[in-house]
């Protein structure tokens, strides 16, 4: 800071402010906010309404005439992959094969005049969440809105002991 030495300069710029410190501070603040800033990912949701009237393993199950659409998922640590089965059928390798079985089963329900046929996902706790969502996603694409999750074994036992 200091007044100009030349004649006439003082009247043009009577007060000189040293902005260097301020620029430094603003730079620091800018860097801080730039580092902490993150752009929001486009997020969405998939509705998975839980059974309203039953809770966890309560009440009597309906009489099953048709085979329930139950997708079993199990993690194969040795093969580093998820094993998928529908009902008591054999292992399904591809997404297409899995959906073909599910669609075939839903058609059987429709033929029997049933409008509600939940797809039950029965996965072991070590299955990757992404794999479960992938199966849900494929079902939603086929307009299968009712997706349910099987309760873990220990919870079912607790429910059974209460009943």
């Amino acid at each position, binding site marked *: 800071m200091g007044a*100009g030495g*030349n004649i006439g*300069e003082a009247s043009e710029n009577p007060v000189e402010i040293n*902005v260097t410190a*301020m*620029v430094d501070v*603003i*730079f620091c*603040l*800018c860097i801080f*906010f*730039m580092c*902490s*800033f*993150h752009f929001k*990912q*486009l*997020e*969405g*949701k*998939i*509705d*998975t*309404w*839980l*059974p*309203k*009237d039953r*809770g*966890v393993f309560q009440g009597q199950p309906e009489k099953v005439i048709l085979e329930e659409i139950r997708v079993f*998922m199990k993690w194969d640590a040795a093969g580093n992959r998820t094993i998928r089965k529908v009902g008591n059928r054999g292992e399904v390798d591809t997404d297409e094969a899995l959906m073909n079985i599910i669609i075939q089963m839903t058609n059987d329900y429709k033929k029997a005049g049933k409008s509600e046929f939940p797809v039950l996902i029965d*996965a*072991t*706790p*070590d*299955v*990757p*969440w*992404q*794999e*479960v*969502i*992938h199966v*849900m*996603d494929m079902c*939603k*694409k086929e307009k299968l809105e009712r997706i349910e*999750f099987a*309760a*873990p074994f220990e*919870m079912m036992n607790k429910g059974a002991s209460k009943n």
Partner: protein
Amino acid sequence: MAKRKGPAGSEYSNPNLIPMIDIMFLLLLFFMLGADMGQRELEEVVLPKASSMKEDKENKEKDKNRLTINVYHRYEVKCQAYAKNQVCRDDAHWRTGIKGKDYSEPEKLGGYLKKEADATRGLDPKNPQVSELKVMIRADQSAPYGLAQRAMNTCAKAGIYKVEVGAARPADDKKKHG
């Protein structure tokens, strides 16, 4: 650019800092307003991809009748599997949080959910035990299913049936939808 003669006859140049300061102020304002300094409802989670997901409009409206359960990898833990986008199966590496608080213990989570659900319980006369509270489960794609399952079971026990799961739109779908 103002020029001034120095004592030895050399020329000093005084750069005009005002436009730069203006720009930096604008940048500062932008980042300050964009930064999320409030209570964090949403933790940093890599959501699983699903093209059938619906855009979450309620989140923008900040629906009071909704809770978000985040299942996320602990930030402070360095995990090789998680860094490689593989599934981390170490339960100690994961945290279940609501509004920045840790609810990894199922009892603690159950107690909190029950308390929250009680406010909206009994609205349906046919099912007085159920709550109209909505719960969004935002679990990381690298999380094992067991963690999300635990959250869902706790919701079921608390009488919450409106459960949604968080998903992100795949990159190739973003181009289609714009």
